[in-house]
């Protein structure tokens, strides 16, 4: 038997116990009841609109500074009636669509190759990492110089803004494929090409969809920037023209339409992820 050693003093008096109160709203990393969740989600939109309405009705504010929700709705109806809003939206959507699809079509295979082969990664990553830190709008003077002021520079701007980010993000998702999954495929008789197409690709599909979802938001920002230069129609063009003539209500219309379309795209991608990659859904 070894001698028992007594500590010099008890630690007990120094220990402060902190009781944990039950809570609903402040549950940390836990779910809250569904009705509360839905109510809070509705409040998230309704409360700001209500405040906006209250401020513009009660307060004596110049509509050129802050139009009321009603006035913005009116402006929406006006722009919709003349079909200008539709033309602007279609023009912007087309630019985003072209630029983003071209960038995605190239960056997905390039990113997968960079993630799968260290050789390709070494060849491209330094260059891509460098260009990634050059803000896409800073390319505008060059694009105008090389491509003029038509649709090409606008689409190219979106391409530049999406391609490099998307390549690097897709590359990162490939790095998360467990090495053992690849080795298991070799043991089952798979060669490198089969492993790439039948194991790595399906494994990174959810990651690719998510990377595209995030970078589509970037594309949507760049289309507005590109239309500030020189454009005959487009939502960005609409906002800058409205600004010049102090039509604040039309600025609000443009902003809200851009926001809603962006949100719809985001939801579309989330839906796509759910239906194509059911296996990757995390249970919470």
């Amino acid at each position: 038997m070894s001698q028992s050693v007594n500590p010099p003093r008890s630690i007990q008096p120094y220990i402060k116990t902190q009781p944990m109160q039950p809570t609903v709203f402040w549950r940390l990393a836990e779910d809250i009841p569904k009705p509360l969740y839905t109510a809070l989600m509705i409040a998230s939109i309704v409360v700001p609109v209500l405040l906006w309405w209250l401020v513009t009705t009660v307060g004596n504010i110049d509509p050129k500074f802050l139009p009321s929700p009603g006035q913005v709705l009116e402006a929406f109806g006006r722009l919709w009636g003349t079909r200008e809003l539709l033309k602007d939206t279609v023009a912007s959507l087309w630019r985003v669509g072209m630029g983003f699809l071209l960038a995605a079509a190239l960056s997905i295979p390039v990113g997968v190759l960079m993630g799968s082969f260290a050789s390709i990664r070494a060849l491209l990553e330094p260059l891509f990492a460098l260009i990634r830190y050059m803000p896409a709008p800073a390319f505008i003077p060059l694009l105008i110089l090389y491509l003029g002021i038509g649709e090409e520079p606008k689409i190219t701007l979106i391409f530049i803004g999406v391609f490099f980010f998307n390549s690097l993000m897709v590359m990162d998702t490939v790095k998360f494929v467990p090495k053992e999954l690849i080795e298991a495929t070799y043991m089952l008789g798979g060669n490198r090409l089969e492993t790439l197409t039948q194991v790595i690709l399906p494994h990174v599909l959810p990651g690719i969809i998510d990377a595209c979802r995030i970078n589509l938001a970037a594309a949507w920002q760049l289309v507005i920037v590109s239309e500030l230069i020189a454009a005959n129609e487009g939502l960005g063009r609409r906002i800058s023209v409205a600004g010049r003539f102090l039509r604040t209500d039309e600025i609000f219309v443009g902003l809200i339409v851009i926001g809603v379309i962006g949100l719809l795209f985001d939801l579309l991608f989330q839906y796509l992820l759910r239906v194509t990659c059911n296996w990757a859904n995390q249970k919470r």
Partner: protein
Amino acid sequence: MFLEVNSLNKQFETAKGTLVVLKDIDMQIEQGEFICAVGASGSGKSTLLRQIAGLDRPTTGEVKVDGKTVHGPGPDRGMVFQHYTLYPWMSVQENTEFGLKLQGVPKAVRREQASYFLNVVGLTQFAQSLPKALSGGMKQRVAIARALASEPKVLLMDEPFGALDIHTKESMHEFMLELWQRTGITIFMITHDVEEAVFLSNRIFALGARPGTVRKVMQINLPDRSQMVKRHSIFHDYRDELMDLLRKHGQEALAVV
């Protein structure tokens, strides 16, 4: 000899110099044996299995399966990994068929083959489930069915039950023994669990650490292979002998460091 490891050495070049992981490993294994290679961490047992699997090349020496030298990975050696390596987007059935698909087996044939082995591991009713719906023990049974579907010459297992709780582990042990008796397949399993090794194998290679060498080959003859045998003095003798062996070499290795 069915599975041979001939004077195998494996060393890695590191910043601090050459690290010898495996030194002069020789193993002769007959067809139909259940072999466990037991060693503490640092005995290079996983490295050894990777050489046999062909996922890694020995520095010198060779591995032969049924007379043919191993040059790379292939389905003649079924492999069950320590971590779950099922394809999460494929159903249990598709997972089990996948090796056969890679090897160009026609759809109808591979479906039948996979169904047979899913039945062997008792998971027929989960054929259409995704792996995420399965428990840890069930996942490893699918991995075993997937490896067996290619009718390998030897089944290689890398601490396959390390992540399982004790009760699941015991039922997996009984399952393995039944599978072994039923199929007569040669099994080479890596483990650090001494009781697991004694209970399952007919021969044990005890590995010493730093560098990994075969310290002793133990023939195991148990009166029977039920859970009751674990209370038998013969079982205890084997277990204690193996424990002493590993402890001794573990201390030697520590003394060197």
